[in-house]
């Protein structure tokens, strides 16, 4: 919710109402003069200017209250254009004005201090002109508020960046670090920053969730629940100001806090967006620019050991170039392949640049786990599911130099990317790479008779889907994201995911960590940040007031229960990577 925008809308709505009201009164139209009714409460016998000024100020204040109420509770609840949403909303204050406020105004204007109530006093008759004036005034107010109060979260992409992280205040407790090589119990700060609306509007989840103001307390909460690691993505769009121009001061204090007190960060360098000057993921120059950025980052913060160069490349390419939701907002296969290759190139160059500064860096390549199930024995549907089950691997195949299937190779040839694919195959993949597999309730999909993919819920579960990825890449793994939009089911989901992790680990897969993502609730996450609505999705360990959710307590319970067990106190797979 944007309090400032709501306040502006409320004042503007009240002033617009008053301007039209004054015009009507000047033209001799009889109507209900709300400004006079309010102003004469303060100055019953005062000069016109006095009651008008007092009445206008009081009316504007009431307008602000109603606009904030609209912003909190009503905005975007109806699928109407914003001014019409405001118009519908205005019925509520109009009814209250007619039934409660107007009779009470009359009582307040009496010269006595008490009266015996009669029906005439409780519901005094209003003339049609008075009723019309009140209804029309509220309608004008609603239209103006609705027209002004739009896109309450995010900011214009071409605006100079805001000052993001606030200054550190107070002191933090001592350093709390698990022994090196212990199993990773992680959470994360949601940090997506894609653009929407044709690249004109920037979504910034750290801003929307209040992390820029409360970062120090957020880190403390992560420590309090016992998280050993924190997936944390410094805002690339604010830090990378131009070619080789970096605003490190923005995060120096934040990084110093993490270095001194933990949790140990897994630095997420590119999370669904690029700075405005770089355009979008169709731009092949992002690979060099991000490679230089990653190298400079690793040089400045040499103590950082864990990196996610590019988060969820498949999701990023799909949402940007195939589903038309973010950044370039394309909907074609060629654009998707270009985005995948640009993202993979960026990931490789970032990895190489980080290794120059920190040869022992560990790369957690987080990717969304996906699975497509054909609905029926139709060759076309089964073929579609088979193709999607190959395509889900494409970005990881590139960065891990894994051969694609013949069908996927033909797909790459069709879009002119075979040569670049061959270059990836020749790559020497760093040994310290962890395959991060994210899992949500919609990651398993059913391909329906029309070829659409519909979320299936948890059909086979993380154990089965993650096993597909293990069989393909044979790299140390980590469960790097999960949560549940239905907060009442979040505890069950957490323990279920954990049992999946245990099962995979016990089956011999080198699994180094688990993550509940994210620390706090997120904003518009369930709708994929596709519209700037400002709806809170209760997926966090803590809500946006930073009050613990039940799943937050459960995660602490889980960590406390396991962290000192010998097999978690020393995780051989992670210890091997750290050597």
């Amino acid at each position, binding site marked *: 919710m944007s309090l400032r925008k709501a306040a502006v809308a409320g004042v503007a709505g009240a002033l617009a109402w008053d301007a039209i009201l004054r015009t009507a009164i000047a033209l001799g139209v009889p109507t209900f003069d709300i400004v006079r009714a309010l102003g004469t409460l303060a100055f019953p016998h005062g000069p016109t200017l006095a009651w008008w000024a007092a009445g206008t100020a009081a009316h504007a204040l009431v307008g602000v*209250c109603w606009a904030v109420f609209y912003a909190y509770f009503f905005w975007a609840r109806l699928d109407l254009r914003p001014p019409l949403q405001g118009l519908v909303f205005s019925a509520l204050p109009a009814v*209250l004005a007619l039934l*409660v406020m107007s009779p009470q105004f009359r009582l307040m204007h009496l010269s006595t201090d008490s009266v015996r*109530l009669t029906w005439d006093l409780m519901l005094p008759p209003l003339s049609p002109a008075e009723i019309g004036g009140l209804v029309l005034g509220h309608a004008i107010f609603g239209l103006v508020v609705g027209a002004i109060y739009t896109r309450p979260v995010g900011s214009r992409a071409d605006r100079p960046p805001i000052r993001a992280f606030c200054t550190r205040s107070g002191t933090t407790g001592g350093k709390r670090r698990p022994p090196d090589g212990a199993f990773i119990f992680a959470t994360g700060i949601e940090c997506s920053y894609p653009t929407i609306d044709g690249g004109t509007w920037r979504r910034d989840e750290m801003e929307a969730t209040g992390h820029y103001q409360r970062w120090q307390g957020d880190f403390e909460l992560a420590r309090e629940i016992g998280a050993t690691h924190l997936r944390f993505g410094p805002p690339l769009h604010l830090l990378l100001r131009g070619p080789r121009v970096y605003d490190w001061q923005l995060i120096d204090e934040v990084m110093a806090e993490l270095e001194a007190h933990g949790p140990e960060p897994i630095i997420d360098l590119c999370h669904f967006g690029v700075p405005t000057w770089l355009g979008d993921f169709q731009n092949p120059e992002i690979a060099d620019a991000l490679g230089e950025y990653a190298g400079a980052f690793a040089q400045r913060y040499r103590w950082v050991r864990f990196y996610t160069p590019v988060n969820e490349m498949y999701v990023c390419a799909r949402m940007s170039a195939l589903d038309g939701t973010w950044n370039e907002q394309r909907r074609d296969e060629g654009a998707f392949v270009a985005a995948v290759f640009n993202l993979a190139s960026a990931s490789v160059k970032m990895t190489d640049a980080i290794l120059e500064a920190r040869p022992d860096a560990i790369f957690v390549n987080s990717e969304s786990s996906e699975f497509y199930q054909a609905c029926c024995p139709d060759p076309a549907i089964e073929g579609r599911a088979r193709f999607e089950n190959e395509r889900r691997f494409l970005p990881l195949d590139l960065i891990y130099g894994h051969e694609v299937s013949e069908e996927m190779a033909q797909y790459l040839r069709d879009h002119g990317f075979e040569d670049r694919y061959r270059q990836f195959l020749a790559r020497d993949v760093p040994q310290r790479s962890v395959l991060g597999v994210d899992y949500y309730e919609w990651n398993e999909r059913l391909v329906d008779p029309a070829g659409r993919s519909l979320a299936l819920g948890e059909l086979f579960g993380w154990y089965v889907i993650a096993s597909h990825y293990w069989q393909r890449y044979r790299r140390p793994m980590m469960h790097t994201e999960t949560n549940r939009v239905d907060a009442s089911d979040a505890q069950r989901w957490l323990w279920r995911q954990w049992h999946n992790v245990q099962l995979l680990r016990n089956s011999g897969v080198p699994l180094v960590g688990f993550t509940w993502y994210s620390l706090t609730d997120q904003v518009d996450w369930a709708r994929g940040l596709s519209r700037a609505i400002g709806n809170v999705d209760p997926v966090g360990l803590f809500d946006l007031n930073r009050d613990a959710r039940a799943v*937050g307590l459960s995660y602490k319970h889980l960590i*406390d229960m396991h962290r000192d067990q010998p097999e978690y106190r020393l995780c051989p797979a992670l210890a091997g990577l750290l050597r």
Partner: protein
Amino acid sequence: MAGFLSAHGYDPGPTQRPLLAGALTGLIASVPAIALLWAFNSLQVEARILDLSVAETLAVGWPIMAVAGALYSRLFGRAANDRSGGWLSGMAFGFILWAGGAVLVLPAASGGMALAGPAALGVFLSLVLWGAALGILLPIVHRPLKLSIESESRHARSGPLAGLRKSAASARNS
């Protein structure tokens, strides 16, 4: 409204103590509201039409505001702890108390008498002020009253059986 509140959660968080915090805050928020009632002569008029002394009116009214505060805190759950928007929720609640309570209950309790003039204005302003103060102060009053994450996380309801109970309930329902 439902969407917003459901996102925050109707149910208070597991570490919150909404009734105690709401009752305490309801009492504290009454202090500026009483000052305003006094300034508008509303308290004296209320006492007169209820046939009570001012002290008796306060003695009756203060516990009612504590109950109202507890009710607000329980009803608004997590939203009542929103530091940026609590004032609005509180004002809305104060307005509802005025519209439903002061406007209707007072005449019912006094044989049909109602406040008028500045005294009526004072009641309205005092309840809106009470609500705003309640909304602003509740997160602050609540903070030291909350249960600790450390102790609550140890409880069995946070453990592996939390999922089992939910699964069993789902199975029964299906």
